[in-house]
């Protein structure tokens, strides 16, 4: 790549020393921007729709009224913030195991998405939910009742995962 000669101008010319033409230039520019379109999003009324790749709060996918999770505990192992706790139990279903307890401490979660990456069943995925509030430390620990989200609500992420995972 050819590097252009670096020109360093050390002295201002007379007009620039007067400041006034330069200031006038600056003022016209900022006046122009006063009438430019605005970027502000009026948040509570106008919400942002994240893309499928967005890493919001992690959720468990609910399929036919049950979680997909087989309680292998990989997410819990890989979690760098040690936010996930899984306890497995047996079930009569085809998958044979299910999590009797599944808790994510949302104060610890760093939204890295490793759990989603490591999950063999696509059972834990990062949702598009970015509005998280808790009033105490206890309520910040999300259990299964808060984590389970029906598959139909997560089509965006699931489609993204099918398309782009492992490539």
């Amino acid at each position, binding site marked *: 790549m050819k590097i252009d000669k670096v020109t360093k101008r050390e002295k201002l010319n007379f007009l620039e020393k007067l400041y*006034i033409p330069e*200031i006038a230039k600056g003022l016209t520019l900022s006046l122009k*921007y*006063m009438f430019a379109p605005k970027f502000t999003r009026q948040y509570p009324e106008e919400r942002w729709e994240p893309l499928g790749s967005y890493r919001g709060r992690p959720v468990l996918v609910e399929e036919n009224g049950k979680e997909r999770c087989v309680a292998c505990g990989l997410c819990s192992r890989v979690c760098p913030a040690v936010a996930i706790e899984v306890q497995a139990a047996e079930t009569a279903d085809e998958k044979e195991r299910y999590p009797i307890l599944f808790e994510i401490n949302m104060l610890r979660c760093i939204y890295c998405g490793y759990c989603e990456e490591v999950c063999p069943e696509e059972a834990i995925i990062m949702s598009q939910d970015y509005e998280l509030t808790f009033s105490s430390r206890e309520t910040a620990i999300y259990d299964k009742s808060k984590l389970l989200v029906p598959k139909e609500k997560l089509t965006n992420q699931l489609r993204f995962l099918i398309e782009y995972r492992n490539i």
Partner: protein
Amino acid sequence: METFLYILLMFVIKIAIVLAIAFTAAASAVFAERKVAAYIQCRIGPNRVGPKGLLQPFADVLKLIMKEDIVPYEANKVFHKIGPMITLTVAFAIYAVIPFGDFFYLNGEKVYLGIATSPNINIGVLFILAMTGLNIYGVTLSGWSSNNKYSLLGGVRSSAQMVSYEIVMGLALVGVILITGSFGLTDIVNHQDNWKWNLFLNPIGFLLYLTASFAETNRTPFDFPECEQELVNGFNTEYSGMKFGIFYLAEYINVFTVSLIMSLLYLGGWTLPFPSEWIGLEAGSFWLSLIQLVVLLVKTSLLVFFFFWVRWTIPRFKYNQLMDLGWKVFLPLGLLNIILTAIGVYCFK
């Protein structure tokens, strides 16, 4: 006795009106500044409190009043209290001599639009200069008494800055006074009737005064007393709650005052852009004075807008550049301006 009471009542009413104008101007200036800043940065700005966000300044004041007032442990308690007082008092004191219009007849008696019984007191301009000079005390004292090196530096800087630009301001004003031949503000305004604005007669003086007033009100590009990057927030770092609010208020009142003075001295003040006979009102009628007041306020608000516009366009100077500009450029230019104006006045009068 009755005349005394009448004069007293007149004074109280006038002071109330002028204070109302100043406070309203400051409040709306705070709001306008935030809006202008937002629009220049492609944002929308405050629009939640009240219709179109117009009640934002009241919300701000309410917040400031309810905040805790913290005085630093080692601070000089007395001066720490006096600092904001001086700033606000001085900001308001200037209004004693500012005329907002000519006069009108009320029950056969002349009523002047301004606090002074006769707004054309022959030291009007000098009084304004003196009062803007006193502004330094508020800034420097509060900076020094906070017992914080950043505040102190802010105060010291601002005193040096204000003293040097005071000179420029004075020199710029000499041009106007030479043209008019009077120190009275009413004389100066009436002399500019019929589009003979001092802006056109004395453009260098206007430029000098404009720049000096930026420095006097501590606004960008000369906001050295604040200077967030270097001095936290300069002289008012250690102030909280309503004491900080007073500095904030005083800054905007000063901007309004300076714009008012500039429109009086250079932009023709309340003189109408057309002869007053065209709308069938003669000098001394109430409605004419009202129109004059509106004309003056429109000119002032345009200048206030210019202050905001410049603030959100131009970055801050370096301190040595400020001093260079003040002493090496503006001082000779001011002297040159006086000589040129004197020659002009000698030739054309």
